[in-house]
């Protein structure tokens, strides 16, 4: 289900100078080209989603923008600070929460935040005041004085997110903030994220979930093999994918090709046929019900029985298929070596 966005979408093109700007970013690890010329421009006060499968280069992009990695080529700046030449000044205006909950399990929630505050060079009293404030805001006040190792996964992730906010960053980077969380914690975290960008913080987040980008981001860039392959608002991207997807499962595997022949002509772009699972998938745009009815009619006429037929929302798979002609799973299977070589690049 899609949750309605809490803030207005900024569909209009950027009128101000972008607060995050990347031009032709390139980065390789040995012979693995993690980024092959990435351009990004994020307007101040907006939420920008980097959407892509494992190994697409999302994390590499975030690591470059947060000064953890140097790019091999191209340039990038955050709030006017160059990621290489002005790294130190840049770090004062950003917050980062990565895939792992980077909190010290042996410190209490409060001590973790106070430490980060001090490392942002806040005076002790201010670091403490803000730590209390953040714990309150993230529903962790009761657990403030317990070691973080006693926290649940969701609490730890919130604490991690809180740590990235103690410095009141102008620009916040969240790398797959909800990966590994159960659906309930994920939705809770979405609320928290929406809350924290209300006061004008710019947010760049990476995700593998189209739904997440849709709920949180004003604009989305789809990344594949180290390049941005599409960019726009969630609505624009969905329009590009074509609204809904019709999924048909044929009972007899031997008749999959026949079934595909019967229904593929219903949409201009054609769809996807999987002989192993007996699935035929086609993007149906806004005409779901009409095409569904027609598909049933044709298959029935051909005497093909179905084990399932359904209209569903497009997933990252569909975006991907539409944009690249490949499936997310194929991409990940094709690159097993790179996951090992780029340990920190692997999204769990």
């Amino acid at each position, binding site marked *: 289900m899609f949750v309605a966005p809490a803030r207005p979408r900024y569909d209009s093109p950027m009128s101000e100078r972008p607060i995050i700007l990347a031009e032709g970013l390139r980065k390789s690890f040995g012979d693995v080209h993690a980024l092959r010329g990435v351009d990004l421009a994020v307007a101040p006060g907006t939420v920008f989603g980097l959407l892509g499968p494992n190994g697409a280069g999302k994390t590499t992009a975030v*690591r470059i923008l*947060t*000064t*953890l990695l140097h790019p091999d080529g191209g340039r990038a700046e955050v709030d006017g600070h*160059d990621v290489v*030449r*002005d790294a*130190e*000044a840049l*770090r*004062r205006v*950003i*917050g*980062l929460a*990565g*895939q*792992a*909950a*980077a*909190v*010290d399990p*042996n*410190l209490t929630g409060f*001590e973790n935040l106070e*430490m*980060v505050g*001090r*490392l*942002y*060079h806040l005076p002790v009293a201010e670091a403490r005041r803000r730590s209390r404030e953040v714990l309150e805001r993230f529903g962790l006040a009761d657990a403030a004085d317990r*070691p973080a190792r006693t926290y649940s996964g969701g609490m730890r992730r919130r604490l991690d997110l809180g*740590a*990235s906010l103690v*410095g009141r960053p102008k620009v916040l980077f969240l790398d797959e903030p909800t990966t590994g969380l159960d659906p309930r914690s994920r939705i809770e975290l979405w609320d928290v994220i929406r809350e924290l960008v209300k006061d004008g913080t710019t947010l760049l987040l990476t995700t593998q979930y189209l739904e997440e980008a849709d709920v949180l981001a004003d604009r989305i860039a789809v990344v594949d093999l180290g390049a941005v392959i599409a960019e726009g608002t969630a609505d624009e991207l969905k329009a590009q994918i074509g609204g809904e997807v019709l999924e048909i499962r044929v009972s007899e595997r031997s008749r999959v090709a026949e079934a595909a022949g019967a229904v593929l002509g219903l949409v201009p772009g054609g769809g996807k046929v999987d002989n192993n699972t007996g699935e035929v998938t086609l993007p149906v745009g806004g005409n779901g019900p009409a095409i569904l009815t027609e598909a049933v009619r044709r298959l029935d006429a051909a005497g093909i029985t179905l084990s399932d037929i359904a209209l569903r929302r497009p997933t990252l798979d569909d975006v991907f298929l539409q944009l690249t002609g490949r499936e997310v799973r194929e991409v990940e299977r094709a690159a097993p070596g790179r996951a090992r070589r780029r340990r*920190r690049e692997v999204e769990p």
Partner: protein
Amino acid sequence: MSVETAGTALARPIADRIAWALRDGLVLTKRNLLRYVRIPTLLVFSTVQPVMFVLLFRYVFGGSITGLPPGARSYVNYLLPGIFVQTAIFGATQTGVGLAEDLASGIVDRFKSLPTSRSAVLAGRTTADLFRNLFVVLLMTLVGYLVGFRFQDGVVKAILGISLAVLVGFAFSWISAAIGLAIKSLEAVQAASFVWIFPITFASSAFVPLAGMPGWLQAWARNNPVTIWANTLRAFTLGGAYVASTGDSLLALILKSGAWIALILAVFVPVSIRVYRKT
């Protein structure tokens, strides 16, 4: 170097940067020490082995060691200074392990994304390990006193001796830091540490006088800095008769010991920081 870099550097004077580096280092030292407060068993485990070594060497080997230098009177008096140095060096391997843990947990990424001094993460770790080593050496002194060890030359020299052991540990923490950051994998760091630590600690005068070793080993052991540190520590604890037997003055021993520590720090502090920046 571009013009902008120079401009930024000037905007933040050196003195200012050093002050921040120290403050950041203290914040992170506190973080690393709190770990021992929260999990006291960690401290217990890091003291069990040194204490066991004191007892084992004292009672198992003590009766068989001959040729003790003048001033030692008994093996336990000879042993303790050596085992202080050995323990401090073994303890230093924990620096690399701790840093490898921090890398694996992702907290290093957080530190690096903050406007925190680049050297503070390492300094905070090595300083915390210095305090842990101090605690362990003090505890060993206590155990040593229970089994017959005595400082022979007064409180000031006793303090100097313990300080030397702890400083040696601090220098080795920086070697360990470079190894931990370069190898990254926790188990590999642990295994790698003992490959080089055993030969340098045992093939020295830390546990037994060199006279009993074969000639080729003596040649190595005589020039091994661990021998120099152990002998200097003995010079502090055993007194004048021992110093005279070394053929060096106390001052010469102190200078040699200090030179080795300075050399290790001069090489491995910049190396570690460099490896850390690239990690």
